[in-house]
């Protein structure tokens, strides 16, 4: 039974040789109360411990931050695309022109009544009458120095008068435009209509699908991000479950264990979301450089707009909350000692 060999003599009255300087008894009996941290020191303490939860496992923390950064990058990028494509489509819609050529025989009073009717229409942004003479003048301007061959055209001007109609952007919906165009075509003064009908319909479809798709995928993306981030944090906390257990066995209260992790999650969320948004801003800047120099169908694209300050703010708050709640929920599993 006894493998210690000759048992040492224990003398309970005298201090052991060398070690045990009598400090313990003195300290114990002094009954001296120990100074506690209080007030703002408590906040500073938890902040330090929060940072420590991040630096203690730098690899895992970097993964958490990157997960949040990538998630927020995608989320914000998606919002950005949604916003700008919406803007582009609206822009394209606002420049949707219909040209109605007027019959040469039409009476001027009928024509001006037609123009007035259009101007009063809710679906029309503007309707501008271009007379035969104006048309020729514009044509001449277009031709510039080579307009000499147009001499003498005034007497038998071949260009028709027209009404240039601009549709209201929010009314670029297939059916309403279709009925408007039907009405125009049937009008007695109208010779011919020129417009891109397919473009109109496709535009309408795209806008609708895009909005619906955008909303649904935004929700799905949010769900996935929550899941990803809480799992990443779970991994970090799982790696520290023994430590959490020991803390509790030594008498740490729930909040003492929890607060540093929540602050850590909050900080990671903050850094991650800012990082993601900054990356997006850089990407956006590069894309915008391209856009500025390119055209679609010969038309210069409008300048793209970045997310508003409040959108960025809201995204940062989302990242921050996801980090904090991720930590909170991940912790619950490992706090049962």
């Amino acid at each position: 039974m006894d493998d210690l060999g000759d048992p040492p003599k224990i003398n309970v009255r005298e201090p052991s040789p060398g070690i045990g300087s009598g400090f313990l008894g003195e300290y114990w009996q002094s009954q001296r109360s120990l100074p506690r941290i209080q007030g703002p020191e408590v906040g500073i303490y938890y902040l330090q411990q929060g940072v420590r939860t991040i630096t203690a496992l730098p690899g895992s923390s970097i993964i958490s931050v990157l997960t949040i950064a990538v998630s927020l990058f995608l989320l914000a990028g998606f919002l950005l695309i949604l916003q700008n494509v919406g803007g582009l489509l609206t822009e394209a819609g606002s420049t949707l022109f219909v040209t109605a050529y007027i019959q040469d025989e039409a009476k001027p009073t009928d024509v001006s009544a037609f123009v007035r009717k259009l101007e009063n229409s809710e679906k029309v942004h503007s309707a501008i009458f271009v007379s035969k003479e104006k048309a020729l003048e514009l044509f001449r301007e277009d031709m510039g120095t080579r307009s000499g061959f147009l001499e003498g055209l005034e007497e038998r001007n071949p260009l028709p008068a027209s009404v240039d109609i601009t549709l209201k952007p929010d009314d670029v919906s297939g059916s309403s435009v279709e009925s408007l165009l039907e009405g125009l075509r049937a009008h007695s003064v109208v010779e011919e209509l020129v417009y891109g009908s397919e473009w109109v319909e496709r535009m309408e479809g795209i806008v609708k699908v895009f909005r619906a798709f955008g909303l649904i995928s935004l929700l799905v993306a949010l769900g996935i991000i929550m899941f990803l981030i809480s799992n990443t944090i779970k991994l970090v906390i799982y790696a520290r479950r023994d430590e959490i257990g020991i803390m509790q066995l030594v008498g740490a209260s729930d909040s003492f264990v929890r607060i540093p992790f929540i602050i850590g999650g909050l900080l990671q969320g903050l850094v991650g979301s800012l990082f993601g948004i900054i990356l997006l801003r850089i990407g956006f800047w590069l894309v915008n450089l391209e856009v500025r120099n390119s055209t679609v169908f010969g038309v210069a694209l409008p300048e793209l707009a970045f997310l508003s300050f409040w959108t960025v703010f809201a995204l940062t708050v989302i990242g921050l909350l996801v980090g904090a709640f991720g930590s909170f929920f991940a912790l619950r599993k490992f706090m049962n000692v």
Partner: protein
Amino acid sequence: MSAQPNSRDMISLYHVDKVYPPNQMALRDIDVTINRGEFVFVAGASGAGKSTLLKLLFAEERASRGQVLVGGRNLVTISRPQKAALRRNVGVIFQDYKLLETRSVLENVAFALEVIGVKKRERFQLAFKMLSAIGLKERIHALPPTLSGGEQQRVSIARALINRPQLILADEPTGNLDPDMTIAVFNLLLEANRCGATVIVASHNLTLIEEINKRTLVLDKGRLIGDFERPKG
């Protein structure tokens, strides 16, 4: 049965069973009372239930049946905040040390003071004195995984004592120590006991138990088969 604690009692167990799931019976029908200020050994072979008994006393495990009263609190119905508060008044020397591996020796010892919010300067000073008293002055900046078993055990002991706990639970506290260090550690535990702490030591070192000659509870296969006031008589 009345659960009203006698103020003289530090610990009372009434008909306590502990079954580990699914059906490992670790303690059977334990009935025992330990007064404030006592120094008690818990003896028994490996697997007898010594660690389990200690774990019930700081609510690491919950009794499957019966009542466990510590310092007037019923640990069967204790709330989470009360559990934490209890542990702050109990110094536990764990059989497997349970040190925070990412914190230095000094920080580990100071940790018991940290959870009660003691200022940094104060807790490091006390931790340093405690570690000096236990012969670890030179290793205060080391991380626990780089220490020998005996050194880790002493860190665990220093952490258990630094809080001046009313109750000290020591699970095989000298299992990894040489004879000289064993004497030193027991002298610390006895000193704490003289200062008023109730001390319970689980050990299967009968020679040591005889040498110190204090009250001894003997466990065998989960049953309390003996309660000797002085094993040597």
